[in-house]
Each structure stands twice: as C-alpha cells, then as structure tokens.
C-alpha cells in the first residue's frame, strides 16, 4: 500500500488521486484528500491536513471529510473542504461555511469575440474600474434602507428583478434560481444589516475580482454548445460574496454557539469549527440567517453584473441585449445546504458544507434548472489573473465521491505577507500587459502583489484531477483580458 506522511498524519492511497486519513481516536469518520501527487505535496506543507482531520470530529459527519484538489489552510475547516452532516442527529457549522457566506462566482457570456475587444482593453478596464465599487469603503451600486435590506435578504434575485437590475432569464440561470426560500431576515443581526446597507453591489478586496476573458480552448463541443460557449468568445467572470453582512452573520453565530453550546464546542479540537446541534433553536436560526446572507450575495453579484452590462453598452456603443450578455450560471463557494444524498443505499437529508468548494451536480439532479437538467450544471473555476480559468460541468462521479462537489479555484500557495516581499504590484501589472496582453487595474499595488499569479497553485493541475476523477468535467478554458480588483 502506498502511503505518504506529513508530520503526524499518514495518508493511504485508495486509488489514483484519492488519499485517505484513516479514522482513529475521536474522529467520527475518515478523511479524504482528492489530489495528484504534486498537489498533495503542496497541500501537506501547511495546516490543511490537520484542519481536515479536525473536521472529522464534527457530530454526524457522514462518509468522509473531504479536501478538494485546490485545498489549503483556512481557519477551522480547511478551504476546499466538503463535509456532510446529518440534519437530524448531526450539526450545522458556521465555521465550516466560513465568514464570507456565499462567496462565489458567476459567468456572463456575450456574442463578442476577442477581435471585437482588441484595441478597447484599456478603455474597458478603466470604465469597469470607475463603475464598479471596490476596495474598502467604495460604497455599493445601491444604498439600502432597512426595508430594502430585508427585502433583499428575503427574496434575493427576485428583488433584483422587481428593482430593474435583473431579468427573469438571469433567475433561471442561477443556483437555486437566485433565492433561498429558507431565508429568515429576522435572524440576521442589526449589526450585520448595518454593515451591508452601503455595500450592496460591491466587489470588496482580497481575492475578489471582475475579469473579462476570452475562450481559448473547447474540450467538450456538445456541452460547450449547451452552455452557449465557443472559441474566441468574450465572457465576464465575477467573484465576490456577501460582504460585511455575511461576515458579521458568521461572527455573530460563532459567538452565540460559544455561549449557548459550550459543551459541543469543548469536544471539538478547534474553536473555529463551532457547530450547533441539528434540531436546536440555534441551528434553525443560523440556517435561516445564512440563507438570507446567501440571497444578499446573489444580489451583490447581480448588481455588479448589471453595471458591467451598462459599461459594455457605453464602450461598445450598443444595447447590452444586442451583445447577448446572458448569465451562464452563478455558483456558491461558501455555503451549507440541505440536500438529499444516497448513503449506504438510503436517501438521507444532509447539511452539505462546502467551504471553498463548488456544487458540481451532474445531469438528472432535481435541483438543476431546465437549461442544464440534461447536461449537468456549469461549474466555474477561476484561476489567477495571469492564468486561465475553466468552465466544467458537474461530473457523474461527484455524487459518489464528494456529495456533488468539486474545486473552487487554483488555491493559494504563498502567504500574503510573503507575496508582498516577492512581488511589486506595478511590475506585475506591467509584465501582464506587455507579455500576456492582460490589463489589470486595482485599488493598490499591494493588492496586485498579494494576488500575483505566482502565489497560486497550478489551476490546470487542479482541473486535470477534477476531470480525471469525474467530479467536474472540463468544458472550456478561458484566459484573462481585463481584470479589476479592490
């Protein structure tokens, strides 16, 4: 049997790209890492494996705690982590969702080609940067009063349709059609609402960005056609989350769990895994608040997409509808959802926690919108601003291996502090423009340095593993043209 050791953790190779940490001691299940040898070597360099092993202590964790190919150290639960817990005798863990509830990505397609855009890159990147709020204190597309915030929390993208920022077609191409009807705005604190009111429609900063891309490679022609994607096409990728409202919601419930369920917390190896017992009042309230924050994040990305359509209309001097600017799909990265999965031959309802992981349902799952019911859902995997991104489709093996999940990005390799020592933002920007024709505009050089292409893992390798495991199948690859960051 092939094994690998990292510190006191031994992994056994189950089959190609599948590694297992056997159940022992207080673990409630084994843990699995889905990675090639090269990716596992990187994953083993920080505390990812320790955090993954810790995640197996969550009550009711089912089958395995799983690390996706892009996994890396987070806080509590690793980024790239998937953990399913029973909704009757398990738990729900805000720590396994993360602070940025429904951080996610969406892709908008156009009928423009790269040739249509060439010569306008500088104008477009400046116009997008001017129009789309980003960074700290950049405001939002909309400033909401109390009634507006509650409406957004309760109705998600349906609010955006009524307010003129979205179309019915947008709703039909969003996970859960853009709103969670389990949302309970009354369980979102006033503090969280205060933080959200001037951030509705804003990128934020960190690794969040908006990128105009061109499709460079098509791997599955039939699926690409179903997704409306073809070579040389211009698409727009938007990556951001629920902003201060979501961050505060997670913080509030972590503290409440600390106060109200200290006994459960004492049994967990890391306080950041904070979990509320399934069926408890706190679990129900957190689920309602988290679903409301999910709605907020969908509206956030929708408003940014709306502004992007307006900018394209200005720059290309035509109505955005003439450019066929359609939402391909919007997928969440940090989320816990009640889903039914087959476990030991029986259907069970589980809280599927995905923290830095993407739902990747294959054809046939009832949750998929009609447009993708027969082909599988689009999965959008952003790379760094100097590398390609991918569109996958949910793979047939995802339900058996990962509760219908795959990776969410390239995954960080280098710390932010080290990145600022290694890279100079202005130099990175110049090199990207001169060597790869990528136009980057950011609030600060430090942001560019922290997000330099070299700080990320090889997204091609992450996607290769996903594709070979059959959890997310390669459909197209894209390459950046313009990128704005907070």
């Amino acid at each position, binding site marked *: 049997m092939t094994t690998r050791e990292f510190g006191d953790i031994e992994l056994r190779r189950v089959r190609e790209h599948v590694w297992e940490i056997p159940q022992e001691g207080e673990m409630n299940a084994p843990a699995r890492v889905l990675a090639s040898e090269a990716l596992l070597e990187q994953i083993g360099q920080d505390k990812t494996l320790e955090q993954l092993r810790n995640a197996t202590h969550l009550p009711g964790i089912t089958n395995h705690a799983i690390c996706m190919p892009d996994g890396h150290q*987070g806080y509590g639960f690793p980024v790239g982590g998937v953990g399913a817990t029973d909704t009757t005798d398990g738990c729900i863990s805000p720590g396994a969702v993360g602070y*940025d509830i429904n951080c996610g990505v969406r892709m908008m397609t156009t009928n423009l080609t790269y040739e249509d855009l060439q010569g306008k890159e500088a104008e477009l990147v400046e116009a997008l940067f001017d129009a789309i709020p980003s960074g700290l204190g950049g405001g939002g597309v909309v400033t909401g009063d109390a009634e507006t915030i509650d409406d957004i929390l309760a109705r998600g993208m349906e609010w955006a349709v009524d307010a003129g920022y979205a179309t019915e077609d947008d709703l039909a191409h969003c996970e859960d059609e853009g709103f969670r009807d389990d949302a309970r705005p009354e369980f979102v604190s006033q503090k969280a609402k205060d933080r959200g009111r001037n951030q509705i429609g804003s990128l934020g900063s960190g690794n969040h960005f908006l990128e105009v891309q061109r499709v460079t490679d098509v791997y599955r022609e039939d699926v690409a056609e179903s997704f409306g994607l073809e070579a040389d096409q211009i698409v727009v990728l938007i990556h951001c989350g629920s902003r201060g409202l979501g*961050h505060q919601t997670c913080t509030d419930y972590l503290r409440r769990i600390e106060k109200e369920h200290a006994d459960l917390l004492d049994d967990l190896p890391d306080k950041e895994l904070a979990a509320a017992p399934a069926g408890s009042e706190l679990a129900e309230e957190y689920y309602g608040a988290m679903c409301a924050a999910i709605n907020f994040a969908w509206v956030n990305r929708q408003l940014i997409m709306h502004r992007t359509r307006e900018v394209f209309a200005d720059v290309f001097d035509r109505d955005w509808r003439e450019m066929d600017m359609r939402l391909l799909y919007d997928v969440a990265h940090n989320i816990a959802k009640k889903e039914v999965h087959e476990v030991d031959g029986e259907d069970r309802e589980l809280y599927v926690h995905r923290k830095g992981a993407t739902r990747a349902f294959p054809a046939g799952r009832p949750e998929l919108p009609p447009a993708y019911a027969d082909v599988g859902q689009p999965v959008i995997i952003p790379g760094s601003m100097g590398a390609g991104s991918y569109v996958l489709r949910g793979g047939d093996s995802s339900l058996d291996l990962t509760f219908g999940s795959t990776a969410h990005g390239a995954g960080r390799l280098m710390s*932010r502090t080290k990145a600022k020592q290694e890279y100079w933002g202005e130099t990175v920007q110049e090199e990207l423009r001169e060597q790869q024709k990528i136009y980057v505009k950011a609030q600060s050089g430090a942001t560019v340095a922290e997000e330099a292409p070299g700080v990320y893992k090889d997204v091609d390798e992450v996607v290769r593993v996903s594709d070979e495991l059959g959890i997310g199948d390669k459909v197209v690859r894209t390459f950046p043209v313009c990128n704005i960051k907070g």
Partner: protein
Amino acid sequence: MSFTLREHTADVAVEAAGDSLGDVFAAVANGLTAAMCDEVAATGDRFSLSVRAESREAALFDYLDELIYERDVRGVLPADHDATVRQEGAEWVVDASARGVPFADVTARDVKAVTYSEMRLEEGDDGWDAYVVFDV
C-alpha cells in the same frame, strides 16, 4: 507594545506583545490596521468603543470584531489604538479608542473578520503575548 504580521497561506496573522492586557489588545488592533493599510494618514477624529465578554479571549475577539464593525458603519480606518481591560465579576470589560481615518485619505484593503483560529493570549515574564488570525 509591538506587533508583527505573520505568514498565513490565505489570510493574515498578527503576533503582538504588551506590558498589560490593554496594551496587547491595542497592539493586535494596530496589527489589524497594518494588515489593511500600508501608509496610514495622520487625519481623522478619535472615537470610543466598549465591549464586555465572558473571558479574556472572548473580550479580545469582540473588541476586534467591534473595530471591524465601526470601520464599516463609520466609513473610517481605525488606527492608533488605545485600550484598557478590566475584570468585573465574571465579565471582562474593554474600554478603547481609535482614530478614525476617513477612507478618502487612505488606500486600504478589506479584512473580513477576526477568527479564533490558533488564537493565543498568554501572560509571560515580560507581559502579555497574543496571536490572532484574521480572515482576508
């Protein structure tokens, strides 16, 4: 009091030291400010805040959370922190102040939240040490 930004794969960590609990709390807060901004302008008015919690660690967590909240609702970067910490019965009380630098005067990046991950707050021979990871 002093702080150092420490490496963390995805986020940022602050290691801080101070002669007293109040000093080390303020030092961590200065580290939070440094994580958001490289050059802090000398502008802005001071504001006060106060939190109470059930333990020293919870008080540190709530204090840093409150600073992030004040940042977002006031639209300022909190800087030049002062804090005192005292015990009142079963609770720990933090009285603090910071200078609120208008966002218009700085180029700053978001820090999303304070975390308990790897949090350390210990008294040693030379005072107090703390280690806090922030979500970026």
